[in-house]
């Protein structure tokens, strides 16, 4: 679904991505892990086409990113960016309904067929009851679910998320992770998510990509990639990996 090859991207001169190779197969839930500033957000922004790479290629469903029209692409690929803060106080339903924009004609102001998708997205995220509430009245977890619902309403095949559990406590982080995991399991949604919590990542993802300093350090099935050496190297810490029913990464120092 997503193929990234030798991707190099710079902001002002010096490369932030220094030759990234990455592939996400259809139906996979992949976690993208790495220390702050290693280029995870930059990589996502190249995949969404909002940043133009200096070199290399990004292909979505086999087609080069530059070959996709903006609207056409957003019918296939939905995103939940980091730190979304609406400038005005929309209701939950209004926010979710924005996910229907890519399916509407240029001069269409409302989407008569979109109601079903919006309702489904609200149900998936458990927000049906809160649909007419203002976004500012929601808790952090509910807010994040509303933005995910907006992405779901897009009925896309791919979902990109940038730290969806940032600023959430463990309970709400679990909610978010199991929510997207379920969508992935039941409908085959392909997911690439930047995550910072190692335990949650190994628990919910099929595969992980470890990034360090603008490159992919290792990529593959969770139990293969996550070990004392790789995690220690990438994050520059000492860890012990417990491999029980749920893997747990204990930080030693």
């Amino acid at each position, binding site marked *: 679904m997503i193929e990234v090859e030798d991707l190099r991207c710079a*902001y*002002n001169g010096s490369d932030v991505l220094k030759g990234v190779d990455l592939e996400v197969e259809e139906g996979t839930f992949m976690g993208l892990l790495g220390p702050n500033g290693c280029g995870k957000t930059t990589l996502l*922004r190249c995949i*969404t*086409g*909002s940043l133009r790479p200096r070199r290399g290629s990004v292909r979505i469903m086999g087609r080069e990113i530059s070959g996709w029209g*903006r*609207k*056409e*692409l*957003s*019918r296939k690929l*939905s*995103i939940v*960016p980091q730190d*979304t*803060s*609406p*400038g*005005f*106080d*929309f*209701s939950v339903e*209004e*926010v979710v309904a*924005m*996910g229907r*924009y*890519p399916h*509407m004609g*240029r*001069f269409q*102001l*409302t989407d008569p067929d979109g109601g079903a998708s919006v309702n489904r997205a609200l149900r998936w995220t458990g927000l049906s009851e809160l649909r007419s509430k203002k976004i500012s009245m929601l808790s952090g977890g509910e807010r994040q679910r509303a933005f995910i619902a*907006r*992405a779901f309403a*897009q009925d896309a095949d791919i979902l990109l998320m940038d730290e969806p559990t940032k600023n959430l406590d463990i309970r709400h982080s679990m909610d978010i992770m199991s929510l997207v995991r379920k969508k992935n399991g039941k409908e085959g949604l392909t997911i690439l998510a930047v995550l910072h919590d190692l335990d949650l990542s190994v628990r919910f993802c099929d595969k992980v990509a470890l990034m360090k300093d603008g490159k992919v350090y290792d990529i593959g099935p969770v139990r293969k990639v996550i070990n004392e050496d790789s995690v220690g190297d990438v994050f520059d810490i000492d860890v012990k990996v417990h491999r029980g029913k749920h893997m747990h990464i204990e930080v030693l120092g």
Partner: protein
Amino acid sequence: MNRRGIILIGVLLLATSSLLALSVGTARIPLDSIAGILISRVPFIGSLPESQPSGWETIVMDIRLPVVIMAMLAGAALSASGASLQGLFKNPLVDPFIIGISAGGAFGWVLALIVTIDSTGWWVQWFRASLSFAGAITAVTAAYLIARTGSRVPVTNLLLAGVAISASLTAATQFGIYLLVEDPRPVMISLLGTCSNSRWGEILVVAPVVLISLPALIFLSRDLNAFSMGEEEARGVGVNVERSKFLILAVASLLAAVTVPFCGMIGFVGLMVPHMVRRFMGPDHRWLIPGSFLFGSSFLILCDMFSRSIMDRIVPLGMVTGFLGGLFFLYLIAAGRRSG
């Protein structure tokens, strides 16, 4: 109350305020005579009532009606401009006056005025309007570029850049007038903001621009909703961010700029009206834009009526809106402080 009901109220308010504004002035003309005069102009059905002072018809049709219509158009234009700029920059403190559009427009207009001061002809109005638009779009683009850091445009930067550009352009404008215009008083006064000299010929320039911009902005209102969530989100739901931003800025600048040559600098209308409309109709731009057009026109008609009736001479309209706007800004700051 639902949004259709509010639109209906807006229409009634517009009708009432227009009639009131037609009746107020040096000669007080009763409302039924105004209605009579207006109806008499409707083809086929109208006939003029006999028993009214001669001259009333001329006052209403040739003097007051163009003023009221100009106030209506300018109010609609400035409010819709403000609403769309606020959506684009996802900030309710933005207004065409604040980010330099009006000052840029005034600069362009004065430049055109100096060049064409002895010219007559139908093209003069259009030339001045065009240069005003060019000035407006240059100013807002400059503010935008100065404010930009990397790929982001922080709104505080934009406001500061706007204030700086406004200040320098206003000084340059005044310098131009002072140095090159023989009798600067009328030019200065018309820059202070007033609709009271408007004639039908000027409405022919402003009306098409305003009437074309309304549908344009309504079709951009989905994009404006998406922009209110942030640029990244807008891109995510399929908005062609750069193109859309350019279109919105262009239409918003055009709307604000077209008022400058004919009404001067009328500040804060674009700040106040969308804010109030949003309070009653919600932030969805598919309603906010038409709502701002509608309530903005009544608002400026009423302000203009007020400016014509508080003293025995006409107080510039820009002073009325400036005063209200200053108070309103203070209220926003206080409200923002209370809510944290």
